[in-house]
């Protein structure tokens, strides 16, 4: 009897297995066709545990400082030119050695504006010259006009063209990608006559992001248009395939099958003709994936491998520099099993990325994986991500390094999930007063960046901001916010200085309640929630102040209206150098201050470069924002090492890399460096840069160390608590609650939170 049942169960399991595997087989079968560029097919992306063989990155930048332009010739020769085509560098061994010779631009300024070059058969170059149009350039620098009717006609009308991509297809045809008047279009030359490849409506769109490239044989032209990439037949211009994708991409070569190799969301992927996406190289560990870098072009090398052209702000050269990297499959490359590291972070973080690059430089045999829990379109909540992380930690299969921002880090430390870092991590260069809170009994959590709630204004006005209550009184007794409509009407919407007359200026300005709440929270929260207790009296003071300021400036009405934001995005410098791709939000308070509508500005300071322009207004001085907490500061990019890690030593080496001068001296947009030397270095760089400029700009004198020395209390950065208080604060500002009501509501809402932890 029993045997029969067993038999049935067995049969059932078998059937289930068949069903499940049949259904699951569509998933991740990886690479089927391999090809010359991926000798080991799909395994390339995950070298870990796959034995030998993986992609290695080689820096093959020719000795060019600054920007360069590069060409991969059909025979595999690499060509590079520096700015102005002054020097020509050629390499016939795929970038290992470069031969320098004078370029066509030697001794002339004629080609200074050239952004991209094409290589014509016979060795002449094809470039775009301002006010001249397309031109061929002989090695000796003589040029000849290369007629392109539309460009010529446009230049006659005074148009400016930007040639982002020039590729010579064969003797008779070139492919140009250019922008004029914000339109992009693609042209193809055929017997000296240009023919548009696709219909007007399709290509005349700002959606077109990047031009294409071509490979021989059956390959086609590749066009990326936002979230669609099209492959066209070289001979006829007919569209062959259309691929949809979520992230914007940088197209590059197609292989013989018509697959496209491209960069998508920092990863190098192969985009198949069927629309499937296969990640060839994970960008976390490679130069093209660096968030501070901007990958200009990626091209495939005949015979296998890729070349990536990455531009980034160089900290030493204080300028944009180009780097060429070659990626080739190395059969013999091995991974040191003691240097396999997994890093978990809730969100992407530039400091972590930089530390990975650094550790990779120091330990080429390491294998590093960065897991970003809230990345891309994985639309899960932070709590979901943490729940999954906890599950993994509890089962001993967690990551080695945890970037603790946004996690219940105190719980992790208390419950022994984190390793004591004091034996292995060098903290001598850090600001010791900031470290003090974290290194009391063993060091389980290390902050690597930080910000400070600060206030800026003239010395006279900073007197009003001596204490929290004095500041609130000064705001309430001061002028209301200047009327923005009047301002925009007179200035035509442009930003002009000299806004409101001195006597009518408000004390402070905020764009919305969010901004006010944010700064007040940072400077006060740890005064009313500490030791798992809530101090209702102090919370009452906080709410009363918030209510008074919000009423004074009418912030309650605009609450919840996100479109109201008056903040401005400013491109700021990455590192002491001119930055690329780094954008910082300048708060409304600072903007109002710059527009001279207010006497003071309150903001979360974390970027030395950004401080300078605001310090320039009048005789501005900085001060700590006077909160109820003495010396509040905000730790950021906090790092911990899992207690279950199998590579404790290497994990500590990674933490050291995060704290190294190499990583810390760059401004990553996550806050001030926590290393004293790095702060000094950034200030120094700014002044060196100022000195190099022509004008008589005064040096930027800022004793940031003096402020940092006053910092004592880390701000409360626990998101759940902040959200609870924010809920009541919003209703308080809208007049739907009294101060007492708000306090009572928080007391009520927070009770279970506190009780759970007791």
């Amino acid at each position, binding site marked *: 009897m029993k045997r029969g049942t067993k038999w049935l169960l067995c049969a059932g399991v078998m059937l289930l297995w068949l069903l499940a595997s049949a259904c699951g087989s569509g998933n991740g079968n990886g690479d089927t066709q391999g090809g010359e560029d991926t000798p080991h097919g799909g395994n390339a992306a995950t070298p870990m545990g796959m034995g030998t063989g993986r992609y290695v990155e080689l820096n093959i930048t020719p000795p060019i400082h600054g920007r360069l332009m590069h060409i991969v010739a059909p025979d595999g020769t690499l060509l590079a030119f520096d700015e102005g085509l002054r020097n020509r560098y050629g390499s016939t061994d795929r970038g290992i050695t470069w031969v320098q010779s004078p370029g066509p631009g030697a001794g002339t300024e004629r080609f200074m504006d050239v952004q991209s070059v094409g290589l014509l058969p016979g060795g002449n170059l094809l470039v775009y010259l301002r006010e001249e149009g397309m031109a061929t350039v002989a090695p000796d620098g003589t040029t000849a006009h290369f007629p392109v009717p539309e460009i010529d006609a446009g230049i006659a009308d005074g148009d400016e063209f930007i040639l982002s991509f020039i590729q010579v297809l064969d003797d008779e045809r070139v492919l140009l990608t250019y922008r004029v008047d914000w339109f992009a279009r693609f042209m193809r030359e055929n017997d000296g006559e240009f023919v548009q490849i696709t219909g007007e409506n399709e290509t005349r769109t700002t959606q077109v992001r990047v031009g294409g490239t071509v490979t021989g044989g059956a390959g086609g032209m590749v066009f990326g248009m936002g979230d669609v990439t099209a492959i066209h037949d070289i001979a006829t211009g007919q569209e062959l395939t259309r691929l949809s994708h979520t992230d914007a991409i940088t197209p590059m070569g197609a292989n013989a099958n018509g697959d496209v190799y491209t960069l998508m969301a920092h990863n190098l992927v192969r985009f198949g003709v069927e629309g499937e996406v296969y990640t060839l190289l994970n960008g976390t560990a490679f130069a093209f994936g660096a968030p501070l870098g901007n990958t200009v072009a990626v091209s495939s090398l005949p015979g296998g491998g890729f070349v990536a052209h990455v531009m980034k702000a160089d900290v030493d050269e204080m300028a944009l520099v180009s780097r060429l990297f070659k990626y080739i499959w190395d059969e013999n490359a091995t991974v040191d099993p003691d240097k396999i590291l997994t890093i978990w972070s809730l969100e992407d973080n530039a400091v972590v990325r930089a530390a990975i690059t650094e550790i990779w430089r120091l330990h080429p045999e390491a294998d590093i994986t960065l897991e970003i829990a809230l990345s891309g379109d994985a639309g899960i909540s932070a709590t979901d991500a943490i729940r999954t992380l906890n599950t993994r930690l509890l089962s001993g299969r967690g990551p080695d390094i945890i970037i603790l921002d946004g996690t219940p880090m105190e719980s992790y430390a208390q*419950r022994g999930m984190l390793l004591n870092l004091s034996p292995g991590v060098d903290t001598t260069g850090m600001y010791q007063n900031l470290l003090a809170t974290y290194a009391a009994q063993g060091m389980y959590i290390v902050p690597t960046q930080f910000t400070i709630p600060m206030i800026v204004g003239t010395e006279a006005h900073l007197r009003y901001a001596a204490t929290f209550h004095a500041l609130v009184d000064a705001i309430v007794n001061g002028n209301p916010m200047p009327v923005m409509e009047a301002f925009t009407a007179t200035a035509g919407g442009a930003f002009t200085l000299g806004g409101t007359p001195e006597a009518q200026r408000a004390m402070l300005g905020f764009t919305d309640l969010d901004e006010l709440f944010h700064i007040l929270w940072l400077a006060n929260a740890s005064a009313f929630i500490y030791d798992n207790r809530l101090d209702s009296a102090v919370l009452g003071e906080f709410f009363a102040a918030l209510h008074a300021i919000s009423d004074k400036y009418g912030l309650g009405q605009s609450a919840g209206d996100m479109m109201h934001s008056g903040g401005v995005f400013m491109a700021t410098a990455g590192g002491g150098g001119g930055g690329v791709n780094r954008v910082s939000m300048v708060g409304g308070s600072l903007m109002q201050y710059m527009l001279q509508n207010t006497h003071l500005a309150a903001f979360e300071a974390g970027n030395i470069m950004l401080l300078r322009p605001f310090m320039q207004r009048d005789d501005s001085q900085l001060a700590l924002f006077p909160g109820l907490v003495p010396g509040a500061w905000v730790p950021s990019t906090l790092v911990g090492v899992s207690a279950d890690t199998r590579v404790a030593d290497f994990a500590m080496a990674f933490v050291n890399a995060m704290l190294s001068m190499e990583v810390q001296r760059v401004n990553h947009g996550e806050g001030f460096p926590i290393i004293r030397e790095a702060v000094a270095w950034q200030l120094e760089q700014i002044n060196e840069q100022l000195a190099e400029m022509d004008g008589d700009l005064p040096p930027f004198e800022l004793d940031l160390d003096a402020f940092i020395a006053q910092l004592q209390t880390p701000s409360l950065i626990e998101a759940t608590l902040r959200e609870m208080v924010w809920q009541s604060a919003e209703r308080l500002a809208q007049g739907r609650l009294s101060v007492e009501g708000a306090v009572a509501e928080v007391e009520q809402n927070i009770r279970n939170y506190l009780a*759970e932890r007791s």
Partner: protein
Amino acid sequence: MLIFFLIPFVDTVRRSFYDVRGVNFIGLESYVSVVNNMAFRLAAVNTARFVAICIPLLLVISLGVALLVRCVRPGGAVFKTTFLLPMAVPVASVVLLWQVLFNDGGLANSVLDFFGLPGVRFMGSGAAFWVLVATYLWKNTGYNMVLWLAGLDSISDTLYEAARVDGASKLQSFRYVTLPCLLPTVGIVSILSLLNSFKVFREAYLVAGAYPHDSMYLLQHLFNNWFVQLDISRLSAAATMLAAVLLVMILIIRRFLDEKD
């Protein structure tokens, strides 16, 4: 079955006696801490209250609906389908609907406005508990109704006939024939209702977050939060106690049924 349910449970019990990393034995410490924890007490009381209110209410309402549906024999099928449909509505849709109805600016308050009544903070007051109860009833009435219908169908007509001959009124025959005959059904309906009452947490969590109003702070909220904080020892201890209570409850229901048999 053993692998996926019993082993996990044994592991849970084991963890309740160990520290978070499962290395050091700490005995009953977690149990003591759990019992003394105010959040646990509140959650336990709320959960008990929820179960104690919901299950009888659901039993009565679904029985009422079942009786009504039996009365409208021709159109009964339409109503049966109608009441079963909420089971199929996905959680996310329920959550969206919940927000639209019960947020401060939601439709429920618009209706109150229309009748000149003051608005209610459904999510920020004791009303939250009743919203949760209503959701539970809305979702599960159909299911239980069908259970009752089965029970009603199994009552032989001869019993009613006999009652009618004895001169019993409709109400009396319901009291003395229908109800006693339905008793066996009560057990299964209660167990299934209990099971479904544990599923309502997901809606509550998605709408009101990890820390909802006190009145609807259930054991699952606490479990969830403890898990996020990695307080696995106390979580396991609480879960073990919950399992014990449930086991006793189910045994009582079954014993009660056996006696009736």
